[in-house]
């Protein structure tokens, strides 16, 4: 077995999965309250390889669904679904439970894990426009979360010169 340095392993991960950006642990009561919330800023055009939210602390027992969407200010593109509402609900989500953008065809339903630590992977999507400025957001429905925290993660590679992503939180 090869014994790579940590920095080499990091680079292997980034080459294979893309560059990872994470939000902080966001309070469910604030960000999963059935209102539109932006989680990542997108500058230019990117290829999204992985996009999910992962419970950091226990969520409340409310049957919340979640979908991922994209909005652009330059050029102006109204909020549009990247996924449909999740299959499965974010109820009493224990740490490690993920809600995953499955990608592929636009508006494929997001997926909430049946249990923590195991989830489906994503078929890549192209998001944003050359020279554009936009955001990837979430919209929850059916019920609001009262407690718990969730961190969102994106792995991407640029698909236009200088394209990049930052966390909105």
């Amino acid at each position, binding site marked *: 077995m090869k014994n790579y340095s940590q920095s080499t392993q990091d680079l292997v991960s980034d080459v294979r999965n893309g560059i990872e950006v994470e939000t902080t642990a966001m309070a469910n009561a604030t960000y999963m309250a059935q209102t539109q919330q932006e989680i990542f800023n997108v500058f230019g055009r990117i290829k999204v390889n992985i996009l999910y939210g992962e419970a950091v602390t226990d969520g409340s027992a409310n049957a919340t669904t979640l979908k991922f969407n994209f909005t652009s200010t330059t050029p102006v593109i109204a909020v549009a679904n990247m996924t449909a509402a999740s299959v499965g609900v974010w109820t009493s989500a224990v740490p490690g439970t993920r809600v995953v953008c499955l990608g592929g065809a636009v508006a494929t339903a997001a997926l909430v894990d049946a249990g923590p630590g195991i989830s489906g992977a994503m078929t890549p999507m*192209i998001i944003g426009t050359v020279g554009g400025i936009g955001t990837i957001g979430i919209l929850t429905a059916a019920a609001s979360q009262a407690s718990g925290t969730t961190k969102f993660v994106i792995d991407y590679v640029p698909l236009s010169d200088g394209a990049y992503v930052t966390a909105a939180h």
Partner: protein
Amino acid sequence: MRNYANSTVEVIEAMQNGLRVETGIAVCTTTIFKQTSVPIFNVYGVIRIEALFGEATTVFSADAAVGRYTFTSTTPVIAEANMSVDSGSVSGLTKGSRLTLQGDLVGTATVITATAGISLWPLGKMIVGVNGGIGKISLNNDGAAATVATGAMQFVLCYTPLSDGAYATKIF
């Protein structure tokens, strides 16, 4: 989160997506969607296409044209042949909408983004070109009865060489 230099980020992109080549902006008033075939990329040798799409940079007029990608070779001589079949109508295509080669099967339709700024990464790959050959990828619009009066599009090709020294260049 790692803090890479931009040159490292570019290498990560190239290793994952292949080498990216972009055309300039082609306008519908004079160049594309005129019911003819318009060359967009030169192909030298054999390449594997990771992604090929056009992105609208100016909104299209309401004209029901369609488009598909084709390959033609001058060395050796290979007549223009479909890489995909015609897309749906590009009428009113908004800025940020994409016309994407889906790859895999040659007869797969070219896909238009349902929403500007969001599209799927092509699910299949394609191999085009001939070892030591010279050819070109074109956008062919002869499958519709309408031409597009206004609008503009930029084309993007992500590829990796498959034969020694193979590469692609933009035509405009």
